[in-house]
């Protein structure tokens, strides 16, 4: 099938000052990379054509992340003990008043981050950090080096194996501090590492640390007691604890996503409650958003900052108006996916490709595509196997 975009491709011609017409073709291209729930494969789809353009055999089943630039997809393979990288083939260049786009075939890169049990991965400012739980070590590589295959990863060790995360922050690195006595427990805070890779001694407590996100120049991690909010400071990152507001129901955040275009965070809180977080607000810094049933996945909308998205176990996708702080549209996409059962069972995941929202439906073998404005399905793409974790990359630009 073909997924229709709102705006047709246009051929933009401008009369240049020198008098001759400068024609540059304005192209919009989006690729969706989809990992199978249990097979070691990632499939790449051209969203406009609705067709698979390539597939990549990996070592194990993967969870996908995309780099901020959209040039690399990181495939985190917890059980296969590695992070593999796929060059998306789409590069966008920003020239302020216009953007360039170059489109090539996607390709599996040679670069690899190997180690025992990688789970959390964070990319920021062109550096990616994967945390290997069974080693307690973060391995970092720059996106540029990953694309060129030029650099050995750099290791930063925490004090012990644990379910941790490392977050690049300018020349610094934030790394979780393991629970002092229980290796199976969640981390107890963040330690700051300097440009030399050594701890600076700065520590911010954060009991049951789990869930991290970035929005603008801020990073947030979730704790049992509230959030740690990290902002750039004059010498080193400034880390502040933002306690949960007193009016909230019983709960805590364990997953966070960050706004683009608007600076805010969205987290889970209770089974049917998400929370919108503005860390710079003195009042109402936490606004609860009630959902009709338990949440399966949620995401912010990079192209339409006013909206965030949540998928619930009744098979509905919801559009959240982050300014009003409530759901404003809902659409049924799949059969119910109960949140009972194992946390890692196949359930839908959300990705956003410009004006379109893509939701994986692992049991039906589909990607559902929804237009953000009308909030109606514009089509579905059939996928072999169980399409699960997915990311979208692309955009619009001129081809010179």
């Amino acid at each position, binding site marked *: 099938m073909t997924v229709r975009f709102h705006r047709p491709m246009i051929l933009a011609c*401008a009369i240049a*000052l020198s008098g001759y017409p400068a024609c540059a073709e304005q192209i919009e291209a989006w690729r969706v990379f989809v990992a199978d729930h249990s097979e070691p494969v990632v499939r790449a789809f051209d969203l406009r054509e609705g067709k698979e353009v390539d597939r990549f055999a990996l070592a194990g089943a993967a969870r996908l992340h995309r780099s901020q630039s959209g040039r690399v997809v990181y495939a985190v393979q917890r059980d296969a003990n590695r992070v593999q990288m796929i060059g998306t083939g789409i590069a966008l260049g920003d020239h*302020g*008043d216009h953007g360039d786009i170059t489109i090539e075939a996607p390709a599996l890169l040679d670069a690899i981050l190997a180690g025992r049990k990688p789970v959390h991965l964070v990319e920021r400012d062109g550096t990616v950090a994967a945390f290997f739980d069974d080693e307690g070590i973060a391995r970092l590589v720059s996106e540029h080096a990953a694309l060129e295959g030029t650099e050995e990863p750099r290791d930063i060790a925490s004090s012990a194996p644990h379910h941790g995360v490392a977050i690049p922050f300018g020349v610094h690195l934030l790394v979780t501090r393991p629970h002092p006595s229980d290796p199976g427990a969640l981390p107890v805070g963040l330690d700051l590492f300097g440009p030399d890779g050594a701890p600076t001694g700065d520590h911010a407590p954060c009991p049951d640390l789990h869930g991290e996100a970035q929005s603008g120049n801020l990073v947030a991690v979730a704790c049992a007691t509230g959030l740690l909010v990290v902002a750039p400071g004059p010498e080193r990152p400034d880390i502040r604890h933002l306690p949960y507001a007193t009016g909230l129901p019983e709960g805590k955040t364990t997953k966070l996503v960050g706004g683009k*275009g*608007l600076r805010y965070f969205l987290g889970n809180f209770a089974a049917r409650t998400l929370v919108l977080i503005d860390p710079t607000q003195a009042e109402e810094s936490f606004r609860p958003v009630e959902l009709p049933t338990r949440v399966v996945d949620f995401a912010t909308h990079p192209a339409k900052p*006013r909206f965030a998205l949540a998928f619930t176990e009744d098979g509905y996708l919801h559009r959240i108006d*982050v*300014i009003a702080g409530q759901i404003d549209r809902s659409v049924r996409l799949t059969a119910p996916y109960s949140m009972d059962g194992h946390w890692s069972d196949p359930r839908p995941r959300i990705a956003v490709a410009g004006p379109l929202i893509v939701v994986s439906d692992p049991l039906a073998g589909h990607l559902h595509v929804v237009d953000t404005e009308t909030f109606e399905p514009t089509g579905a793409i059939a996928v072999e196997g169980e399409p699960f974790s997915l990311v979208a990359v692309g955009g619009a630009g001129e081809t010179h």
Partner: protein
Amino acid sequence: MRPLTQAALAGLAFAVLAPTAQAGAEPLEVVASFSIIGDFAGAVGGDRIRLTTLVGPNGDAHVYEPRPADAAATARARVVLVNGLRFEGFLDRLIEASGTTATVVEVSKGAHILPANGKADDHHADEDKAEEHHHDGSGDDDGHAHAGHDHGAYDPHAWQSVDNAERYIRNIAEAFCLTDRDGCAAYQENAAAYIEQLEELDAEIKSAIAGLAKDRRTIITSHDAFGYFEHEYGLHFLAPKGLSTEADASAADIAALIRQVREERAAAIFVENITNPRLVEQISAETGLKPGGALYSDALSDQDGPAATYLDMMRHNLTTITSAIAGS
């Protein structure tokens, strides 16, 4: 029907009894993009407006990221006042996200605008001419403007000329008048009173600068925020960073600046309230120029600071500059 009629009559009676009272009349909802425009809006609007200022005291609008609350205020507003000239990089996203139907007013419209490569000698009384000038004088050779987030075609810091601030005030009064006709007389009156104060300020700056030795007029700040002050009043400003605070200065930029400081015998160096002082401290250490205090470039200070209003800010900058030069 009866309660409704009674309510309507009650309202009418009230209106008849107190024809000029503000009670019950909703104030005009106004959003100002940053503190200096917020101060102007307050001076013109007085208590007829309810003002929300997005980028507050000591905030850096070049790199500001709006919050959902900013979008909510923008959605409520009937007038949104912005500087324009690509100063507020966040503006388009915010307007779109808010879905606002407000009138968005670029208050620098009609001011004497300098091109981004700055330091032009001729004035441009309107945007069309400025546009022309840009294309003739600093035209691009490759057919597109490359007016990026960090280098627009024009220098946005137009408020650093008091003459331009007058234009800002007139534009704000006009925007308020168009949206709230009943308040127009009050807005015009407030604007006229404020413009008188601006004219005093302008004369004060001119006479203070005239008293400075001609060869002691080169000073250093951290970003190019004072092109209009230079153009209007005749000081020479150098800065390691460009028109925006967004991009970091390169090592080569800093080395070139240090050379220039020595060649031109710069008289003083200043930190800015909105930028990290480290860069200026480094240049200070390498050149032996002692920092002469903090200048307020793109934002006011908080209420307790020395630059809580535009008038205070300009006077503070003037005395900071003149006393540093006098002591050098």
